[in-house]
């Protein structure tokens, strides 16, 4: 995706998906 190396690009995508899930799970519902 960014580097051309399948392992590094895969690692980045997995890290981003995990980060996205953590962000969604810890999102706030009000002020």
């Amino acid at each position, binding site marked *: 995706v960014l*580097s051309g190396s399948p392992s590094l690009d895969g690692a980045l995508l997995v890290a*981003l*998906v*995990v*980060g*996205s*899930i953590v962000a*969604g799970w810890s*999102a706030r519902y009000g002020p």
Partner: protein
Amino acid sequence: MVETITPVVHGGRARWIRAVALHVLGAGVTAALFGAILGGLGSLLGAPWGRAGAIGVAAVALVYALGELPRVGVAVPQLRRQVPDWWRTYFGPSLVAFLYGAGLGVGFLTFLAHGTLAVVAAAAIAIGEPGWGAVIVGAFGVARGAAIVVAGSITTGDDGATVLDRLVARSDRSRRGANGAALVVIAAVAIAIAARTDGGWAALASAVVAGSFAWSAVAKLASPRRWVGVLEDHRLPPWVIGAARRGVPAAEALVPLLAVVGLRRASAVLALALLVVFSIEIVRVRLTIGPAVACGCFGERTTASTSVQLLRNASVSALAAIAAASAIDAPLVRWPGAPHGPDVVPAVLAVVGLGVAVFAAWRSTAWLAAGRRA
């Protein structure tokens, strides 16, 4: 919103499961669409940006990772809106569960306590592929929608009132820890990628300039009264205020528009010209009125010191200069050349047809306006 999706309101586990599924679906779909748009935008702006893009993602991730430390805060872009309460009055339970999910899916429109989504969104732009953007941002929507399952044990009206508290009160320390760890991992992988790639600086500079001007234009267009108030504070002549009211945000919006259609050097040159004008105005206001006047650069009415404003403009100007000198244009639309030989007749017919269409549209508008007045 939360109470709408509990068994208390819907009266049964099957209905609750359906409501949760629709809620997750709504959040996942809008988040995935948002991610696809970000990826598409990145692609139009020349992403992926090689080493520059990877370092950019790593830098943003590290800044927000530091923001997860105790007593350290980094501003997270968010509109702090809440999904409308009246939806549950007007729509059925299934539709409203989906709509509430859809409202929360984009994330930045409501409340965000952590910068992780901003990093994921930046990565979606930097990767520049709508499909991957949909996957990585879509995961946020699914998780945010699924967070409602903590309401699964709620069976009584008294319990219902505690659902929101339970969602909000999950350990702040553990949330900070989880987000910080995720951000450090993203930064580490991005740094490893940066070591294996190179280039991309001019395209990234063009994208950052375009993003800054888009933000500035949207802020002014979103709060036109505040923008006019700033112009009045600058004690400009009425005709200048009249021209700047729409002219400045329009000129600012042209910078990202040119970048998106692939005219990156023209976008950068326009940005440089605008920054020179804005910087002259900052100095004029400082010398003739004083320091307590907002520049309104991003629609704000709070004041920043003249040196900070000029330093900010100088930073964006430096990026614009890099883009103007080195960015490679990739125009989406090319101006057609002069027709030759057998192309002349179709070209003349096309021009005449276009003229007739414009005339018909103009007359139709005039007739319709006359009809409304009658």
